[in-house]
């Protein structure tokens, strides 16, 4: 159901972005990348936050199932993180003429966040499976979530004005209703897609674990 909603919303969002929404003055056609890049980035943040929430639950309740849920959420966040970096790079190339700008804090902070979560997997697989690994992974996932507001707000804190700020306090610079509508449809689509992928991935991982236990019991 979630997957179907995601597909319908995303297809609608893409059609709206390409054929319905008016071109942004100054940005031109390339501004259409915004409708996929920003929702994908926000979805990555949401996945990391969800992973941190599950990690907190694990440390709180000491239930093993939260470890797998937190791990799956971080896994999803990393996939959406890759998509954010790639779509952001494409936008940078068409807007600034370069694939990457080290001078932009938003970009660099997102890269740090992404690499931080890549290291999560290294940590996880460097420790033997068991309660120790679960606790270490949970603490690491919780630490990573601190970087999210920093990365999210960096654009507003940055002195550099290279990165386009879309939601500002200035009404004239804000999105029009059609742009906002398209953005919301795309965001809802990517969130539904992430939710569906999370559920599929979690079911697969649980099945994998159960099969391994069954194999051990039968051996």
């Amino acid at each position: 159901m979630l997957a179907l909603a995601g597909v319908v919303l995303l297809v609608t969002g893409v059609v709206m972005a390409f054929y319905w929404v008016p071109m942004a003055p100054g940005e031109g056609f390339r501004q259409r990348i915004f409708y996929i890049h920003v929702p994908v980035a926000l979805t990555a943040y949401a996945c990391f936050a969800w992973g941190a929430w599950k990690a907190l639950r694990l440390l709180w309740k000491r239930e093993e199932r939260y470890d797998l849920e937190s791990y799956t959420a971080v896994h999803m966040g990393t996939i959406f993180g890759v998509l954010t970096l790639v779509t952001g790079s494409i936008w940078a190339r068409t807007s600034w003429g370069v694939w990457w700008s080290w001078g932009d804090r938003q970009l660099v902070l997102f890269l740090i966040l992404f690499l931080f979560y890549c290291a999560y997997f290294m940590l996880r697989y460097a420790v033997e499976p068991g309660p120790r690994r679960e606790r270490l992974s949970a603490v690491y996932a919780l630490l990573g979530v601190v970087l999210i507001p920093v990365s999210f707000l960096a654009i507003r804190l940055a002195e550099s004005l290279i990165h386009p700020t879309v939601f500002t306090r200035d009404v004239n610079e804000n999105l029009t209703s059609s742009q906002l509508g398209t953005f919301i449809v795309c965001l809802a689509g990517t969130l539904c897609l992430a939710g569906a992928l999370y559920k599929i991935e979690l079911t697969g991982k649980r099945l994998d674990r159960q099969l391994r236990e069954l194999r051990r019991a039968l051996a």
Partner: protein
Amino acid sequence: MTSAEKYATAAYAVVLAVVLLYVVLYAFKLSRLQREVAELAELAARRKADTDAGEPDREPERVA
């Protein structure tokens, strides 16, 4: 097609390609899980057959 149009299309195509790649990889994983389930079911059936075949031999031992 202008370069801006090409780049915008590429950004959407990348997202679609990654989602499709994920679905393909998951299809492979699903087929592996199916194969493992079939193997385990066969193993369990063999175990059951062995147990059933071994029961008459064990019966006198228990009586004794």
